[in-house]
């Protein structure tokens, strides 16, 4: 058992555990906080996979924006007696069953493929070059500039859409006319 493996196992366990707490916790604020921990665990895994840029993006975007957004949403939609009621649907067993089945299937499939047990190949070039190459690939014309730009348009649309949807009713007309 190497150090990396240990780190991996610990992180994975923590992430999975906090994931389960996310879906099991009756208090939504607690669930949001557990979500932050899960996201942090994913960050560590990114680092283990030598995708440092992505780890940082994970922290900044997921934890820093999305998780906060979720907390905002929880706060904005609180009901007085919300936490005392049941937090799962009547047919939660069906969902559990489905999830288990899916996991079982995936597991069965994955263990049958031999190449997956091999170790990680050597990373070509410097680790520092990865970020530079990544950045350049995102904006170079013969690589991934199109998806990059499309994604930015998508973000713009989502931004505007979210604002329009979430506006209070009276201000929706004015904002819609203006934009």
């Amino acid at each position, binding site marked *: 058992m190497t150090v990396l493996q240990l780190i991996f196992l610990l992180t994975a366990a923590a992430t999975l555990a906090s994931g389960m707490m996310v879906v099991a916790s009756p208090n939504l604020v607690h669930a949001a906080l557990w979500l932050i921990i899960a996201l942090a665990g994913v960050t560590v895994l990114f680092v283990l996979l030598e995708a440092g840029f992505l780890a940082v993006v994970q922290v900044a975007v997921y934890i820093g924006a999305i998780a906060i957004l979720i907390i905002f949403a929880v706060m904005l939609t609180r009901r007085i007696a919300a936490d005392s009621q049941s937090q799962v649907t009547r047919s939660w067993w069906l*969902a559990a069953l*489905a999830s288990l089945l*899916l996991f079982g*299937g995936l597991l069965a499939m994955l263990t049958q493929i031999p190449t997956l047990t091999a170790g990680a190949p050597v990373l070509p070039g410097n680790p520092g070059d990865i970020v530079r190459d990544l950045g350049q690939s995102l904006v170079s014309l013969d690589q991934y500039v199109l998806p990059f730009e499309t994604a930015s348009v998508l973000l713009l649309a989502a931004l505007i859409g979210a604002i329009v949807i979430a506006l209070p009713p009276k201000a929706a007309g004015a904002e819609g006319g203006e934009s």
Partner: protein
Amino acid sequence: MRPEILSWLIPLPPILSFFLIVLFAHRSNRLSHTIAVGAMLISWALAMSVFILALSVERLGEHPLASSIAWLPTAGTALHIGVLIDPLGAVTLFFVAWTCLAIFVYSVGYHNFGSPRDNEDVPGLPPRAGGIEPMYARFFAFISLFAFGMLTLVVSDNLLTLFIGWEIMGLCSYLLIGFWYAKESARKAMVKAFMTTRVGDVFMLLGLAYLYSVTGTLSYRAIFSAPVLERLAASPSVVAGLSIAGLIGLLLFLGTVGKSAQWPLHVWLPDAMEGPTPVSAMIHAATMVSAGVYLILRFFPLITAGWYEGQALTPTMWVIAAIGAFTALFAATIAVTQNDIKRVLAYSTISQLGYMVAAVGIGAFVAAAFHLITHAFFKALLFLGSGSVIHGVEHGAHATHEHIDANDMRNMGGLRRKMPITFWAFVAGGLALSGFPLVTAGFWSKDEILGHAYETGQVWVFGALVLAALLTALYTGRQITLTFLGGPRSSAAEHARESVPTMTIPLVILAVFAVGAGWLGIADDFPVLGGVLPNWFHAFVGGTLLEEPAATHFNAVPVLASVLAALGGLFLGWLVYRRVRAEQADPLVGPLGPVYTLLQRKYYFDELYSFAFVRPAYWFAETFTSRWLDRVVIDGILHGIGRFALRVGSFLRNVIDLPIINGSGDMVGEGVKRGGRGLRWIQTGRVQFYLVVGLLFAGLVLSYTLAIRP
């Protein structure tokens, strides 16, 4: 113009007149009678021209004026129709033209032309008080059509157009007898006349068809050729004992029995007096009933085929003679007891036609034709005279506001002074009818028949005819005495007046013929007078037949018998009736007793026929056919079919249409609804549910493609 072409034109003016009056002229009375009389005048002129031209032809019998056209093409041959003017046709044309013209002119006055229309007169009833007849134009239309029918019959050269004319006259007789259709007696009489003559016509048509089927032609010249006649006389027919010629002759004679009112089909003629008097004169005295005799005269060669003078009569001839003689006597006995002036003349007509028929039966062709012509003149004269008398008495009745039957002789009397022209004309006709010796036409013609009967040894016929002659004179004397002599028996008769000239002039003309027509047929060996005038008639008409018949030899017995009968009868009639008062019973009632009632009731033949034929026919029509067959059987079948169809329909509806067809249609809709209702629980509206379902299906598909069918 050739006389044949003129002959074609003779029937044409009256039919044109009929159509013109019916379609255009019927609103104007003057125009109607002008067209009618004018048309008849043209036909008369054409007929006279043809007659004169015919007279000039040498041996007209062998070279008749003839013309025919192919009318109806049938396969290889064609049916020919045409005109034929032989001696018989020529003399018939002569008297038909004269009598019809006289009667047309008479009708103008008879229907009171010139008098204003009485507003209380109803169409369908005779004018009450001397106003113009409301249906004036209609009358002239009908008699024009009738004249067309008679002229067609006379000029035709084949049995088919003869039959056409025959039937047209039957129709006009029907229409004219019931001219005053609002009277129930007239309506009954018109139907009776038509039905009775129809019986005869059926047999005539059978004879016609049989003749056509045997000879293949209906044309006279083809049938009356010697080879054809010999063949027909020699071959036996379907009836045992009769040759084909005999059977056809008998069947055609049955048509004559109907049309000329011989016993047993005589019952319609007296009732036919319901029609206006010109109708009685023309149709039922001079022309239509004469058509029956004309038919058997025309077919004399066929009737007498295989018979030669001096032989015993063939069965057909015997039947004809028997019926003729019997009818002559039978009708004369009834005439003695009748009180209606026209009815006496009707029975007299039946009786005289019996004379002619009997003459044909015993083979006296020329005598029969002679009597036909003289009778037409004097009978028409007598009828027109009676019409004049009736008009005079009606005028008197209207003047004195008396309501009496103007036809009844018991209400007349003394009219000699009031209506002199009518009186003398009537006397002329009456004497001719009785056979007053020498000066009247009736004597010569009747004498010839009696002479022929005596000469050929037909004793029964001779006896019957002499007896009938006596009775004829008797009732004629009675009629003249009751009507004109003595004193008036009612105030109507006292105030009678003479008729207008349009009525009296035709009387005078006919009187001339009634007196003079006989002198053309005086036998050559008649004492004193024979040979003074040649027996033109015998020579001319006798030429019609293939072998000219021998002239009757003068024999004192029949002449004496007829003279005695005539003078004796007239005298007796005058004697018995000259002092009859009003309201007095008939002098003959006492002596004759129950026989008188029998005679007056016409031997109860009307009652017999009503019982034997008319009532069963009504029963058959009303009960059997109408009630049973029509309503029960036929309607029953129809209703049954209807009910069955209804049942089939409701079965189809309830068993097939509603459950199956409607049901399957409904089921589609219902099925969709139920299916929807069954499936809609999936549509929960909850997102998570949708996701789960989607996941499950995705899993299913995935496992299928990966595991079972990779």
